[in-house]
């Protein structure tokens, strides 16, 4: 099972606007079935964002659940200035960043397994094929190195890379989620990529 994180898949999963508004209205009136529908709709993306930030499945599970619960409790304060999806993302992002600040120096991996499609990804195959003859070992090692490198970035820089390069969000969406301007998003992304490239020179050489 692959998480729908790319821009293409997220576009496909984005619901029609009126339906989402309708669900939000119902949930505000205490309709838990409507909220259940909203949770199902966004659970994978919210979980994935938090997971990529923490590199820990258990933490991501707790934080994702907490984010949805907090969003439900705060639904009355949701004015509808942005989409419910952006608003929910903002709650999850803030919760994750606060959590990571408290967890500083206590980082421990609990990485998810790679799905079966990984070995068929031509980009990844090309990247590791000349590094090691044992492809599986190479991928697992690559996964670990990548997560280590990501955890070396500051939380805002990591968040921008995760949202843009992993989740496929646009600069505008990220700016709205992180409550900053697009220029800041661009500069953070550039700096974060530079840092990552430095940490992963063995795998990601500049062209």
């Amino acid at each position: 099972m692959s998480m729908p994180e790319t821009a293409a898949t997220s576009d496909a999963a984005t619901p029609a606007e009126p339906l989402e508004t309708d669900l939000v209205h119902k949930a505000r009136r205490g309709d838990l079935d409507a909220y259940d529908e909203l949770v199902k709709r966004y659970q994978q993306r919210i979980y994935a964002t938090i997971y990529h930030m923490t590199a820990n499945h258990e933490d991501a599970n707790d934080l994702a659940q907490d984010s949805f619960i907090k969003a439900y409790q705060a639904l009355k304060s949701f004015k509808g200035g942005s989409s419910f999806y952006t608003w929910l993302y903002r709650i999850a992002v803030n919760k994750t960043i606060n959590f990571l600040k408290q967890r500083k120096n206590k980082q421990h991996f609990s990485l998810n397994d790679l799905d079966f499609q990984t070995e068929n990804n031509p980009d990844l195959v090309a990247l590791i094929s000349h590094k090691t003859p044992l492809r599986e070992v190479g991928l697992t090692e690559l996964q670990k190195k990548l997560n280590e490198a990501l955890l070396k970035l500051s939380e805002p820089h990591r968040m921008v890379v995760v949202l843009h390069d992993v989740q496929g969000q646009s600069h505008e969406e990220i700016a709205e989620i992180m409550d900053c301007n697009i220029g800041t998003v661009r500069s953070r992304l550039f700096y974060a990529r530079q840092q990552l490239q430095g940490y992963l020179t063995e795998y990601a050489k500049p062209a």
Partner: protein
Amino acid sequence: MNETEQNFEELKKLLTIKRHEVPPPGYFNHFSGQVISRIRAGEAGGSQTFMERLQAEAPWLANFFRVFETRPGLIGGMAASLCLLLVLSVIFADRPDAASKNLLAVSEPSPVSGGPVAAMAETPLLAASADSSGIVASTNPVTSLQPTATLFGQAGASPLFQPAGFMPAGH
């Protein structure tokens, strides 16, 4: 921009590995159910934590407390300074005359200046009354300013005060 994008092409390919990291099979089948049951449990018990209530009612205060969570040294420093302040206030509350004497010493003019004002300052009424009574109410400085004897009662003792005479000339 294109050049920099090209420079990061390998890195972006590498980052695609993150998209293949998946939680255990069937994880999302129960996720929403768990969220909803936690919401139901919270509603039934009405059990919002103190911090959650504070966040809803006074977010600035919740953020203030959160600073202490992230920097435990800060709360120690603040507690130490509060203790110090408390100890200092207790010490100074117990010694009011020291404070008032210090105040007088500061305002006391030099004896060289002379004159009746200087003479009064040389025999401070305040100090005399404090010494004679032995008890000074620190919270009522006005009473401590009252001399034990009236100025007129001591008139003979002081060269500054002479009894007023009303004798017509020639008698």
